[in-house]
C-alpha cells in the first residue's frame, strides 16, 4: 500500500497529482506540498542515516530548519529533508552528517538583487503577517520574508481561527491584500540568513530548486537579496527544544510541534501509538490532535506537578492519561522507539518512585520553547534570560528593529497578532509614514500559556553524569551529557570552551533546537543557579547554510572579473597574440609566428625594434590631465624631480615616492601648455596614482589650483620604435616635420595624420631606440594601429608585446616598478640619484635620511652578465658573494635577480639584479645557486648594457 501513514484527508497538499521520488534507492510516492520528510513519514519511513561517529540509528526529529538528523544529498549535499520540497523525480540519499561533493560541475545560475525597504518583516506567521499588513497600509515599501513555501507560520500546523474564520483563510486574505498593495514584496521560500550593520539584511531565496531539474536554467536556482531596511520587524517565531534523557535520540522521538505539523499540515501520522512528553502547555495540542487523528496516546507526561487544570481536563476527556510531575527517563527499541520509561520527578529534578514503561512508536517531546533570536543577536541586540519563560529573549535593540510574537516570547495567538500589528505600524511611522495599527481581529488559538517547568537534564535511572553516554545533548555531533561532564571535569567553565571541547552546537543545525537545552545541561552540571549564568554562544550567520554558488552569484567564469581590453585588442586577438594578464588588462605578450615559441618570437621582435621598426599598443598606460595654474608646483611636490620648469611642448621622466621614500610609480609627463600637463603612469598603478594625486590635493593642499582628470581611456597610444620609425612617422604624418632638429627627443607635437586623424605625438623612448608614441582618441586606436602597420610595411614593421618591451628596456637598464622594485627600493637604490632633487621638498624626501635608508650597503640595481653567455638566470634567483659562501643553511644572500632575458642585440643573456653594495661590485663576480644544484657565475655590470650614451635614442 502506498503512503500507509497518510491521513485520508486534510493537510496543505495537492492530492490530485501524486509525485514519485526515491530515497536511498527505494521508490515512494507523495504529494506536492510535502517535504521529503513528510513524504517519507507518510510512507512509514522515519529512519534516516545512522549518526556520524557512533552509528546510532536516527530518525526524522523535527519538521523544520532545526532538523538534526534527516540530512540528505539531493543535488546539493547536507540538505535537511524537512526543508526539501517534494517534486516529481526527486532522488535523495541519506547522509550521516557528512556531505559529499559532486565532481560534476554545477551549471546552476544564481542571482543577486539589491533592494531597499522602509519596513522589512521577517517571518510570515500571525505576528509577521499582522506587522506587514500594518506597514503596507501606510504606503511604506514593505518586504515580507518567510522561508516556507506559503505564508502562515505556525498557523499552517494548527486549527486556529481568526476573525471568526479558519486562520488560513485570514492568512490568504492578508496575502491577497498585500499582493495587491503597491510597494509590497512578498518573498516566500526566502530565508533571512544575515542581519548586518546599518540594517543590512541578506536573504536567500530559493527560486527553482524546488521544481526539480531546472526547466529553464536561466531562471536561477537561487537568489541572494541584499536589502537595506529603514526598519525591521523580526517575527521569526520560536524553536521548540528537545529534552535530554537516556535514549533521547532514538528514531520516533520527535518534537511535539513537529508531530502536530505532520498531522495537520502534511496529513501524516508519524506514529500509531504515542507518548507525549512536555514541560509546557503547547504539547497538549499535539496530544489532542494525535488522539483526534486516531493515534493512541498512551500518556501525556508533563514535568509540572500541577498542569493547568483546563488542559489536563481536555486531555482526559480525549482519553489521554496525564502523568504529572514526571518525565521520560529512557526509551527502548531496536531501531525505532518501542517503549518509553516514565518516572516521577522530585522538585530537585531527581527521580523518585517506580518507573513505568509504556509501549509506543512515537515519543513527542516538547522540552520548552526558545524565541528564534538568531537574527536579533546578529544585529547586536542583547539578550536576557527570562526565568519565567525559561528562555533567552530579546532585550535591548542595537538597530532599528523590534521583535514580536513568539520571537520575543509571546506565545498566545492574540498577543502575536496584537504585537505584530502594533510593531508594523510603529516601524512604518518611524520610517516616515502615517500608519495606524489595524484593529486586531478576534482569534481562537493558543491562549497565554501557564509557566513551564524546564527540566534540562532528566537523570538516568542509575549512575552518574560521567557515564550518561546515551543522553544526547547535540545528537548530530553525538555529544552527550558524559561529554559535557568530562569537559567540566577537565577544568572548563565557559560555555565557549565546552562548545569547542564537545563540539556541541557546531554541526549543520548550529544547535538551533538543542542549543538552549545544552545551556541548561551545562548550567546544571556546573551547579549554576540558572542558564543566565552560563549565557549563550555567539549567534553567527548564516541562519541556515547557504551554498557557495549562491554567494558567488553571477560573478563566475567569464564574469568573475572584468577583462579590460584596449581599442586595438581585436587586432591582437585576430593576429594570434599570446596575452598576459596585467591587473585586469589583457596585454599582448608576444605574437608568435607559426612554429615559433616565445623565445624565438621575442628575439625576432627585438631584432625588428633595434634593426628596423616595431610597434606596440601601449594604450594601457595610465594617463592623467593635470590642469591648473599650480599644476607645475603640484607635480614638483609629487615627483622627486622638478616639473615646474619644464618647457611647454617638452616631456620629462619622473619618479614618485611614498612618504617612506620607497618608489611608488614612474612615467613620462608632457607639458602641453603653461597650465596643462599630461601625465602617464604604469599600467598597474593608473587608478592608484590618480587616487594618490586627488588625496594630496583634497586633503593636504586644497589651496593649490589644480584639477586632475583621468584620460586613460580617452587616448589610445601606439609606440613606433626603431631606427626606421622616423620614416614611418613621416609617411604617417606628412604634414609634420619629423626631422631631428624640428622634433627632438623628449618633445611632443600635435599633428593630423594622413588619414585625417588628429594625433598627439610624443618623441619618447622606453626602448632606447628612436621612438614615437602616437596618442589618438581611443575610438581611432584601431585605425591608427592599422595605419602605422601599413606605413611601416615596407620597413618590415613588426608588432611586439610586453615581453619584448621588457627586454628592450632592460638592455637599457630601465627598471620596471613592481618587477625591479618591491616596496623596499628607493630611487637611489635604482642608481637614479640624478632624479632626486636636492633643493626642493617632495613627498618622501625626508625618509632618505633615516639610518637604514641612508645605509651605504643597501641593495642596488646592477646588470649581470652570466659567464656562460647562453645561461639564462631565473628571475628570482638569489645571489651569493662567492663560491665558498655556500655553507649553511642559512646561506648569506646578497641580492636577487629581478629581470633576466636573452638579448638579440647583445647576442647573449643578461639580467638586472638588486645586489648589496651592488655598484661597488661592478666588475666582480657573484653567484646564483640554483635548485638543480648548479652554481651560476655572473659578472656585475652597469645596468645599462646597450648604447650607454643614448646615441640611438637621440638619433
Amino acid at each position: 500500500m502506498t503512503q500507509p501513514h497518510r491521513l485520508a484527508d486534510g493537510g496543505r497538499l495537492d492530492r490530485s497529482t501524486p509525485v514519485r521520488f526515491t530515497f536511498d534507492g527505494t521508490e515512494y510516492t507523495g504529494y506536492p506540498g510535502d517535504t521529503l520528510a513528510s513524504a517519507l513519514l507518510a510512507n512509514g519511513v522515519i529512519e534516516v542515516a545512522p549518526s556520524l561517529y557512533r552509528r546510532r540509528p536516527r530518525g526524522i526529529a523535527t519538521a523544520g530548519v532545526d532538523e538534526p538528523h534527516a540530512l540528505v544529498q539531493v543535488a546539493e549535499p547536507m540538505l535537511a529533508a524537512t526543508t526539501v520540497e517534494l517534486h516529481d523525480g526527486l532522488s535523495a540519499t541519506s547522509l550521516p552528517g557528512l556531505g559529499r561533493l559532486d565532481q560534476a560541475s554545477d551549471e546552476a545560475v544564481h542571482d543577486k538583487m539589491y533592494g531597499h525597504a522602509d519596513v522589512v518583516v521577517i517571518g510570515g506567521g500571525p505576528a509577521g503577517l499582522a506587522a506587514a499588513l500594518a506597514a503596507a497600509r501606510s504606503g511604506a515599501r514593505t518586504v515580507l520574508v518567510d522561508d516556507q513555501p506559503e505564508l502562515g507560520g505556525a498557523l499552517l500546523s494548527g486549527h486556529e481561527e481568526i476573525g471568526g474564520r479558519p486562520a488560513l483563510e485570514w492568512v490568504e486574505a492578508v496575502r491577497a491584500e498585500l499582493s495587491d498593495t503597491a510597494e509590497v514584496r512578498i518573498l516566500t521560500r526566502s530565508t533571512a540568513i544575515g542581519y548586518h550593520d546599518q540594517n543590512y539584511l541578506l536573504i536567500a531565496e530559493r527560486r527553482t530548486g524546488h521544481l526539480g531539474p531546472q526547466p529553464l536554467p536561466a531562471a536561477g536556482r537561487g537568489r541572494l537579496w541584499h536589502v537595506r531596511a529603514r526598519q525591521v520587524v523580526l517575527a521569526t517565531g520560536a524553536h521548540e527544544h528537545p529534552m535530554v534523557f537516556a535514549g533521547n535520540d532514538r528514531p520516533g522521538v520527535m518534537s511535539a510541534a513537529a508531530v502536530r505539523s505532520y498531522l495537520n499540515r502534511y496529513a501524516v501520522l508519524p506514529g500509531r501509538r504515542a507518548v507525549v512528553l512536555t514541560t509546557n502547555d503547547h504539547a497538549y495540542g499535539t496530544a489532542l490532535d494525535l488522539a483526534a487523528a486516531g493515534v493512541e496516546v498512551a500518556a501525556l507526561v508533563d514535568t509540572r506537578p500541577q498542569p493547568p487544570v483546563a488542559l489536563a481536563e481536555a486531555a482526559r476527556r480525549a482519553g489521554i492519561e496525564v502523568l504529572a510531575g514526571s518525565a521520560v527517563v529512557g526509551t527502548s527499541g531496536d531501531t525505532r522507539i518501542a517503549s518509553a520509561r516514565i518516572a516521577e520527578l522530585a522538585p530537585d529534578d531527581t527521580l523518585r518512585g517506580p518507573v513505568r514503561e509504556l509501549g509506543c512508536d512515537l515519543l513527542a517531546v516538547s522540552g520548552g520553547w526558545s524565541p528564534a533570536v538568531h537574527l536579533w543577536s546578529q544585529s547586536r541586540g542583547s539578550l536576557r534570560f527570562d526565568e519565567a519563560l525559561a528562555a533567552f529573549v530579546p532585550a535591548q535593540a542595537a538597530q532599528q528593529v523590534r521583535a514580536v510574537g513568539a520571537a520575543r516570547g509571546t506565545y498566545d495567538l492574540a498577543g502575536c497578532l496584537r504585537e505584530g500589528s502594533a510593531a508594523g505600524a510603529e516601524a512604518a511611522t518611524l520610517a516616515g509614514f502615517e500608519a495606524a495599527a489595524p484593529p486586531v481581529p478576534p482569534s481562537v488559538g493558543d491562549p497565554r500559556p501557564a509557566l513551564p517547568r524546564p527540566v534540562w537534564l532528566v537523570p538516568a535511572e542509575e549512575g552518574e553524569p560521567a557515564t550518561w553516554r546515551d543522553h544526547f545533548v547535540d545528537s548530530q555531533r553525538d555529544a552527550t551529557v558524559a561529554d559535557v561532564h568530562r569537559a567540566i571535569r577537565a577544568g572548563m567553565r565557559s560555555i565557549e570552551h565546552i562548545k569547542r571541547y564537545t563540539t556541541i552546537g557546531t554541526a549543520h543545525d548550529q544547535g538551533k533546537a538543542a542549543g538552549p537545552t545544552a545551556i541548561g545541561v551545562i548550567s546544571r552540571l556546573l551547579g549554576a543557579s540558572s542558564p543566565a549564568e552560563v549565557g549563550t554562544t555567539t549567534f553567527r550567520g548564516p541562519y541556515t547554510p547557504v551554498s557557495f554558488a549562491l554567494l558567488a552569484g553571477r560573478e563566475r567564469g567569464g564574469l568573475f572579473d572584468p577583462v579590460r581590453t584596449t581599442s586595438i585588442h581585436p587586432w591582437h586577438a585576430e593576429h594570434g597574440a599570446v596575452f598576459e594578464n596585467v591587473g585586469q588588462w589583457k596585454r599582448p605578450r608576444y605574437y608568435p609566428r607559426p612554429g615559433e615559441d616565445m623565445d624565438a618570437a621575442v628575439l625576432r621582435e627585438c631584432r625588428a625594434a633595434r634593426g628596423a621598426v616595431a610597434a606596440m599598443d601601449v594604450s594601457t598606460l595610465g594617463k592623467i590631465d593635470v590642469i591648473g595654474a599650480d599644476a607645475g608646483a603640484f607635480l614638483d611636490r609629487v615627483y622627486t624631480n622638478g616639473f615646474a620648469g619644464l618647457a611647454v611642448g617638452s616631456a620629462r621622466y619622473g619618479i614618485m615616492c611614498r612618504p617612506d621614500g620607497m618608489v611608488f610609480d614612474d612615467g613620462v609627463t608632457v607639458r602641453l601648455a603653461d597650465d596643462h600637463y599630461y601625465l602617464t603612469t604604469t599600467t598597474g598603478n593608473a587608478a592608484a596614482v590618480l587616487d594618490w594625486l586627488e588625496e594630496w590635493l583634497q586633503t593636504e593642499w586644497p589651496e593649490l589650483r589644480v584639477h586632475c582628470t583621468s584620460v586613460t581611456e580617452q587616448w589610445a597610444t601606439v609606440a613606433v620604435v626603431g631606427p626606421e620609425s622616423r620614416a614611418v612617422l613621416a609617411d604617417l604624418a606628412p604634414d609634420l616635420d619629423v626631422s631631428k632638429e624640428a622634433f627632438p627627443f623628449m618633445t611632443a607635437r600635435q599633428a593630423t595624420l594622413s588619414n585625417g586623424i588628429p594625433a598627439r605625438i610624443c618623441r619618447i623612448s622606453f626602448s632606447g631606440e628612436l621612438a614615437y608614441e602616437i596618442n589618438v582618441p581611443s575610438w581611432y586606436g584601431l585605425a591608427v594601429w592599422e595605419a602605422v602597420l601599413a606605413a611601416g610595411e615596407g620597413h618590415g614593421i613588426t608588432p611586439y608585446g610586453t615581453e619584448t618591451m621588457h627586454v628592450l628596456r632592460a638592455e637599457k637598464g630601465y627598471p620596471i616598478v613592481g618587477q625591479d622594485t618591491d616596496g623596499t627600493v628607493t630611487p637611489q637604490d635604482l642608481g637614479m640619484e640624478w632624479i632626486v632633487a636636492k633643493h626642493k621638498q617632495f613627498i618622501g624626501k625626508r625618509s632618505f635620511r633615516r639610518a637604514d635608508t641612508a645605509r651605504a650597503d643597501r641593495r642596488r640595481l646592477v646588470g649581470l652578465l652570466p659567464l656562460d653567455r647562453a645561461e639564462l638566470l631565473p628571475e628570482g634567483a638569489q645571489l651569493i658573494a662567492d663560491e665558498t659562501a655556500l655553507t649553511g643553511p642559512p646561506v648569506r644572500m646578497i641580492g636577487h635577480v629581478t629581470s633576466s632575458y636573452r638579448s638579440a642585440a647583445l647576442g647573449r643573456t643578461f639580467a638586472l639584479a638588486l645586489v648589496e653594495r651592488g655598484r661597488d661590485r661592478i666588475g666582480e663576480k657573484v653567484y646564483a645557486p640554483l635548485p638543480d644544484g648548479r652554481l651560476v657565475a655572473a659578472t656585475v655590470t652597469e645596468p645599462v648594457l646597450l648604447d650607454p650614451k643614448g646615441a640611438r635614442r637621440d638619433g
Partner: protein
Amino acid sequence: MTVDGLRRSPLGDLPETLGHGVRLREIPFLTQLNLRLAPGGGAAARVAEVLGAALPTEPNTVTDSGDLRLLWLGPDEWLIVGPDGAAPDTEGRIRTALPGEHACLVDVSANRTTLELSGPGARTVLEKGCALDLHPRAFTPGRCAQTLVSKVNVVLDQLDAEPRYRLLVRGSFARYLADWLLDAMSDTALIG
C-alpha cells in the same frame, strides 16, 4: 572616407538585444566633456549663459539644455553629454566662459561609451548588480549617479520613466558590463 568613418566603438559589434521587458543597445560616440570649476562663481554663471542652462548644483541631478545633458559629478565637477559630433562646438562655447578662472575642461568623449538599458524590466536588471535605490521614490528621470554595477564604475543617467537608463562606462570595461547585463537580462523571471 571621412575621419569619422575610422572610429570604432568598444561595443561596435553589439547588436541591440531584447530581453523580457528590457532592451540593451550601445549609443556610441556621444560627446562628453568633463568640466571642473567652482560652483556659484562667475565662470559658472557664464557657462550657464553660453549653454543656456545652469550647471546643476544639487548632487546627482541633471539639467537639460537642448540636446545637451549636464550631469553633476561632484561639487565642482560636471559631465556635459551631447550627441556625436557636438564636442568641438560645445567645447568652444564653454571655453569662452572660462578665461582667467580656475577651471578645467577636458574632452573625454572617447573615454567612455554609453549603454542604454530600457523597458519595464530595466530597473530589475540593474538591481541585480547595483546597490543604489532606483525606486521612483528615490531615483527619477533627471537624476544621475556615479556608482557600481557589478564590478564596474558607471555614470548612471535616467532619461525617462519607462525607465530608460544610460550607463556611461569606460571603454575597457564596456565589454564586461555588456556581458554582465546580457547575462542578467537572460533571467526569465525579470519582474518580481
